[in-house]
């Protein structure tokens, strides 16, 4: 299926989205990520019962924290799709990249440029 998806996405593999912690999401932003999205199995289809549901809650919690500290909660997003949906995976990747491009870079990068500090 040789589908194309944007090259500026770095995929971090986890055994289950239930492994994704708020801290992982926050650390990504701390290190300069412009956006993070979590792609889990379809709700109800988790091999580990409820890993994807936990992931959703953690994504929501991260959104709240990022909103509160002025980074913007909408830079984090949860998606659910099955392993057979390659085309949708590529479409979501495009969607997310478009959204983040509209939002602009992670505000910490702008601040760094303004103060002349070295990049991350």
């Amino acid at each position, binding site marked *: 299926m040789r589908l194309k998806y944007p090259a500026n996405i770095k995929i971090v593999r986890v055994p289950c989205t239930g492994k994704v912690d*708020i*801290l992982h999401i926050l650390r990504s932003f*701390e290190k300069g990520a412009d956006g993070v999205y979590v792609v889990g199995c379809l709700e109800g289809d988790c091999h580990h019962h409820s890993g994807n549901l936990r992931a959703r809650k953690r994504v929501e919690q991260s959104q709240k924290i990022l909103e*509160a*500290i*002025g*980074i913007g909660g909408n830079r984090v997003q949860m998606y659910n799709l099955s392993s057979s949906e390659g085309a949708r995976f590529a479409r979501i990747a495009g969607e997310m990249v478009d959204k983040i491009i509209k939002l602009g870079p992670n505000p910490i990068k702008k*601040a760094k440029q303004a*103060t002349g500090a070295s990049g991350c």
Partner: protein
Amino acid sequence: MIVADKKPIEEIIEEVKDKHTIFIVGCNECVTVCEAGGKKEVGILASALRIYFLKEGKEVKIDEMTLQRQCDHEYLEEIRNVIDKYDAVVSLACGVGVQFMAEKYHSIPVYPGVNTCFMGVTEKRGLWAERCQGCGQCILAHTGGICPISRCAKRILNGPCGGSSNGHCEIRKELDCGWQLIIDRLKALGRLDEYEKIYPIKNWSFERSGGPRQVVRKDVQE
């Protein structure tokens, strides 16, 4: 355990926004169990503050540590050698820990990172509920093991009031009427006849009303 809830991060930022070196200190006891101030929450707060300061273009050093307890001298001593490096401490312990830290290291400002709520239980994960108000004179023996002081919105000792309906308290539907629980329990114990004993006016001097309290135990003092 002592149950606490996370403080809104905006509130913590407001307190520490002008600091340059911040020490975030968690506690491994009650606040870890109620997921408000343990190692995990320390990490999240530290990361969020780092992102915030990076965004503001400020260089702020933020360190993390979680102590076994913050309500005992011996554990608080563990930070004696490092604490002077910081110009603020955010303690995620309960109000007891925050104060003990402040008492011990009085030249460094200590800010609370949680709102300390009550003494309670984990009814289920994510739901903690009050069970004791520390009145200093336990009456549970007479009330079937259910406390009217902590579980009745009016703390009445001869309840229930007229607002009890379908087992719920008048102030919030999701709240059990403490006196309904007491009556159910007395019934289950075959002691419902005890309901008619009038509980006398309580001596509240062992409670908050009596001023800051102490327990003095000469037998275990050194």
